[in-house]
């Protein structure tokens, strides 16, 4: 009988103590800086090195580059860049290997959609998903920081 009464005591004590739940839909949830949310893409930094597409475990990044429009500059400029968020597992490997931090994680995570094709985010959508971008990207995988080719 003693155990039961102790148990009742604990629940009664909890009844009067401060609640721990937060009202998520009303107040937006503040995530720590390193939180891996939906990616933000900055096309001018991208050198079309294909690293992110190569490292992605679920192969959900598809990108195509085109030769640089103004003649004197060498190299390529990104043309289309889309991530298929049906497959993306937000594992942050793409931002890890990107040498120029063109692809960066943001802190917002609302990805609910009514139809599957809304989950194909194209370049321009990723570009203006620029709210609360992550500061510290720590791309240890990037070539200049000894990352894997």
């Amino acid at each position, binding site marked *: 009988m003693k155990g039961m009464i102790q148990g009742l005591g604990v*629940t009664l004590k*909890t009844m009067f103590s401060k609640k721990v739940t937060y009202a998520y839909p009303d107040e937006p949830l503040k995530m720590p800086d390193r939180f891996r949310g939906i990616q933000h893409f900055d096309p001018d930094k991208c050198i079309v090195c294909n690293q992110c597409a190569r490292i992605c475990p679920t192969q959900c990044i598809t990108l195509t580059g085109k030769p640089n429009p103004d003649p004197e500059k060498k190299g390529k400029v990104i043309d289309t860049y889309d991530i298929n968020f049906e497959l993306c597992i937000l594992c942050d490997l793409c931002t890890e290997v990107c040498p120029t931090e063109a692809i960066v994680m943001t802190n917002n995570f609302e990805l609910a959609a009514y139809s599957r094709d809304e989950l194909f985010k194209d370049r321009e959508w990723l570009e203006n998903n620029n709210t609360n971008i992550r500061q510290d990207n720590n791309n240890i995988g990037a070539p200049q920081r000894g990352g894997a080719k």
Partner: protein
Amino acid sequence: MTKWLEQPLSWENALFFTAMAVVFLLIVLLYVVYAILFERKVLGWMQWRHGPNRLGPWGMFQTVADVLKLLFKEDTIPRKADRALFIIAPALCYAPSFAVLAVIPYTRELYFADLNVAVVYYAALSAISTIAIVLGGWASNNKYSLLGGMRSGAQMISYEVPLVLSIVGTVMMTGSMNLRKIVEAQGDWFWQWNFLPQIIGFGVFLVAAVSELNRSPFDLPEAESELVAGYHTEYSGFRFAFFMLAEYVYMFAIAGLASVLFLGGWRPPAPFLDFIPGIVWMILKMAFVIFFLFWLRATMPRVRIDQLMGFAWKVLLPLAILNVFVTAVGLELFIKG
């Protein structure tokens, strides 16, 4: 109500009684709506969270929304179910629970029937609900509900006995089975109420009542983790609401009985407090008993079926009989001697 009851039956006082019954039904439905909300809020508070608070201020319209939802939901009848029994079961379960409320005296004058066999009346009617639950379990032609129905049948029957036996002590003390007389026989000060001399009876009554309601430590029939949902697995829509309604109205009845039999009904805990009308005290005591049921539900794990049975016959029954014996000896020594 006394003078209305003494008059010979005539058209207008029959009409008056039906009106009173309808008003009382609405009050009880209102009670059920806010008891469900109160239970979910209390459970929430006891689990570090707020409970429903999105519909209306503090979630007031939550249960109203649930009831409306159940109204609009399509209540399906499984194809191979026994249609007639499937339809009757919820009604058969709800009707006795409302009939039982007539016999409980809420204040000195406010009561609906002044039976001198009130206790037996209660026991008889609540047995009909047991049959309805077993019927529901069998009729929905689903393994899980069959198991749930069997279990609840066995549980109800084996807990009916200690429930009634625990009341015998009080009845012996007051010498009558009429609930109004039992309340009047209790003293003015709260320690003169029946629960102190009848402490064993009160304990056995509470445990048996919790099991009679199929609630927390004894909620075998709708043990979610084992039988998915017990006897009302196949019920949906308003038929399911009937089963829920029956459970909460029985809780109302048990709370009423407990406060009348053991906690001094409408009597104030101390004589100088009697300027507050009796109905307030009655409501307070019933609220306390109902809160205790919620409190148990938040804390206790479920008892296993064989332990449940063993507990009824091997522990509660002997205790109840012991209580009767002790009361008899007590009466003999103190009152008569």
